């Protein structure tokens, strides 16, 4: 029963976070609505009427919310009109239907554009996370076990340096050495428009494109996992029961596997979940450098083009994903650690 209450509490807070993000998202973008009829280089063929028609097309001629006709410049008015015909409620209504609006630039539904992007980002991040978690755990374990030796020292320094590298810079360095010396692809998820004879070829092509971005990601993220794993294992290894186990005659490897690893897992789950925000930041940089067609690149491109619906939608999706992932991590954590329900005071 206690666990159920805990779970419900967690879900409640996840939902509150989501509501907060939705409201924040809306007002953020309405403070500067942006003009879909505008481009960096203006076009002489775009008449004033056409610009106005474009604005109408994207519903920018409606009042923002009750009593505020627009937020920038701040214009009051329209308090008594139909409150549901304001941009805010139209926006919320659309969200509930899974509609994220229409892209200013392409006129396509944002949800459609970002759906595939989301999958691409998950693919990239997912694989990189798995590898870096695995490596982080193993290397952290080894470093803690061999603490105060040269192995520990080098692992420690390596992970600190890795963590200090700007993700985008590492990406650039790898991109050009990789494409120059190993002839790896310069961009994208797969070779454009290629016909593959079988699934193996397709996987290989995907793999070649994944190699450098994943490597970049792994290097940057792995450092932190190594550090955390190392420090947690160090603590665990200093516990009394380790001495007991050793006295009982268990060999080192067994001790590491059955005791150190198990108990160090809990903080790792937390760190992985908390790291998701950082992971997303890394994704934006990596996708920009490697032209990987994911959510991060969508954000970057839409900023440049002032395509606010896409930007808004991508931001929302990312926030949702992180909140959801955190929730899952929380639930997983509670499943793993029975102490937690008593601690938490909702």
């Amino acid at each position, binding site marked *: 029963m206690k666990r159920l209450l805990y779970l419900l509490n967690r879900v409640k807070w996840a939902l509150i976070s989501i509501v907060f993000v939705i409201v924040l998202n809306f007002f953020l973008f309405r403070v500067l609505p942006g003009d879909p009829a505008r481009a960096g280089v203006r076009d*002489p063929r775009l008449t004033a009427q056409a610009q106005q028609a474009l604005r109408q097309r994207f519903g920018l001629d409606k009042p923002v919310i009750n009593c505020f006709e627009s937020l920038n410049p701040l214009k009051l008015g329209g308090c008594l009109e139909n409150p549901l015909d304001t941009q805010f409620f139209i926006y919320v209504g659309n969200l509930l239907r899974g509609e994220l609006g229409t892209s200013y630039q*392409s006129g396509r539904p944002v949800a459609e554009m970002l759906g595939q992007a989301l999958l691409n980002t998950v693919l990239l991040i997912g694989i990189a996370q798995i590898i870096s978690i695995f490596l982080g755990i193993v290397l952290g374990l080894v470093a803690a076990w061999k603490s105060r030796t040269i192995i520990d020292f080098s692992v420690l320094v390596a992970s600190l340096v890795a963590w200090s590298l700007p993700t985008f810079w590492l990406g650039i360095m790898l991109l050009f050495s990789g494409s120059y010396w190993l002839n790896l692809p310069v961009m994208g998820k797969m070779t454009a428009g290629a016909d593959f004879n079988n699934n193996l070829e397709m996987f290989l092509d995907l793999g070649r494109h994944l190699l450098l971005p994943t490597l970049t990601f792994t290097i940057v993220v792995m450092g932190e996992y190594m550090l955390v794993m190392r420090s947690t294992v160090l603590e665990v290894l200093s516990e009394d029961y380790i001495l007991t186990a050793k006295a009982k005659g268990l060999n080192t490897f067994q001790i590491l596997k059955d005791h150190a690893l198990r108990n160090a897992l809990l903080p790792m789950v937390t760190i992985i979940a908390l790291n998701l925000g950082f992971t997303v930041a890394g994704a934006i940089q990596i996708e920009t450098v490697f032209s990987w067609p994911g959510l991060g690149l969508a954000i970057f491109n839409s900023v440049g083009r002032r395509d606010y619906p896409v930007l808004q939608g991508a931001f929302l999706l990312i926030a949702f994903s992180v909140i959801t992932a955190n929730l899952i991590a929380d639930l997983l954590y509670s499943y793993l650690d029975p102490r937690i329900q008593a601690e938490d005071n909702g």
Partner: protein
Amino acid sequence: MLKLRWFVAVFLAFSMIVTACGGAATAPTSTKPSDQNQPSPTKEETKPTEPPKPSILRIGRAGSEDTLNPGTAMLSEAWVTFELVYSALYMQKLDGSFTFDLATSVSASPDNKVLTYKIKPGVKFHDGVPLTAKDVVFSYDLYKAHDDFPYMNGYTKYFDKVEAPDDTTVVLTLTEPIPNIESQLGYCFILPEHIWSKVAEGKAATEFQNEGLIGSGPFKLVEYKQNEFTHLAKNPDYYGTVPKVDEVIFQKFENRDALVQAIKTGQIDMITEMPNTAVATLKNEKNIKLVTGAPLAPDITDIIFNQVSPENCPKDAKCAGHPALRDRIVRQALATATNKQELIDIVLLGLGAPGLTLIADGMGDWYNNTIKDYPFDIPQANKMLDDAGYKDVNNDGVREMPDGQKPLVFRLNWPSDSTVAPRLAELISKTWEQIGVKTQPQAVDPDALTAMCCPTFDYDILIWGWGSDPDPSFLLRVMQTSVIPDGTSETGYSNPEYDQLFDQQSKEMDPVNRKELVWKMQEIVFKDVVYLVPFYSQAVQAYRTDRFTGWITDQPKLALDHVINLLAVEPVK
């Protein structure tokens, strides 16, 4: 505990694989029109002899189409694709002139208001449905009916009505005679009525994604992934020259360095642009040929002076520009104090020509090449300002107005997403300091820039730019008095003589006379320094010599991705 960990890991790995499969094979947002004529090789497992691999031309570029809907598209990359997939009555050639595409002949009524076109018989759309004059009528009516089509609005403004008395005749009635009708009809692509009639009304037309992209041009769409690539294949039933390449893939790169890298490593066969700094390195590459020339659709970078007079100030506008800029002598002095060659060298790495007016050298005959530019002469510029009474009364290095009050300090703004403007601003500010003029440079968000520019006129000097169109009318339009109130005029320039000439040239049917008028207009705005155009940048493109040959590089304009080029190239043997 361990079991759980392995389970989680396996589950994650499994979902990654599923995602990869799903993402790769059946990408939901990419489009493969279910058509019969796929020229790619069959993939059966047991085949005695392999059919020859199709020749695929891979083109790299830094942008991509915004949409495949010709009504709503605004980016030039979309128009490149449209010209490959669609037909129109006319087609633009690489010397800037227009030739018949779908049309075979035209006859005009004596008042030039009724044009009768004959079009080629037996033309089919990519899905096999015949193209008739009815499709032309439908398309023109569609364009005209939608004022939410950004560009078609301007192109069909003077269409009164269009009719198809029979399958191969189109009768176009204009509200007034239009001298440049070919350039406008060249962009009015012929859409298949049997597909578009379902979405012709209202919002459906602007929301239609048109991902089947069925046209009647030399290429047809195989697959389209927005912001990634566009995959075309040749149309073997094309009524004109059938392309010699089997397939063309346009690939979008997020940054231009990656373009250079890709062509060097052979992942790409041709690139339509590159950073000027790469020219030196690519020149030395063995299998790559670099070409420069006037771009097909020149982008103009311009320096805008706020010169709106109080009489012309629109209602509710601020009109808060520096008064000195309304004095032509000041503008001429600034032009004389601008070292255009230095700007070309540093900003464009030498790949450009000094600019004159908004009509660029790539506009062919429309460009008035007899105008003599202001020579870069600091002492002369200083003298001009001295003689006009703008002296430095307090010896702080900055001149003041003739009444000794307001110093010549100008706000200098540009859109924050411009790569060229910051460097430009820095360099001209430095040289203008030498004639006692100071600037306050500041990058501004593009939306904010629009808000302060026009028709508010709350700025001093802006660095901005225009895209262009083959016909000079569209750019000359922005310097009229009548467009000051609606925000089209950036400068607030007003000259009745210019306005009159504009009206004349927009009706002048004889091309020679019209050219004279257009040339005179350029002289006027050059003398009045309405805009200061620092340079016209050249197009820089490159192709691999070991892949495809037949590239056309000896024409006045350079556009390796133009339909004429893609019809001419073939694989290297």
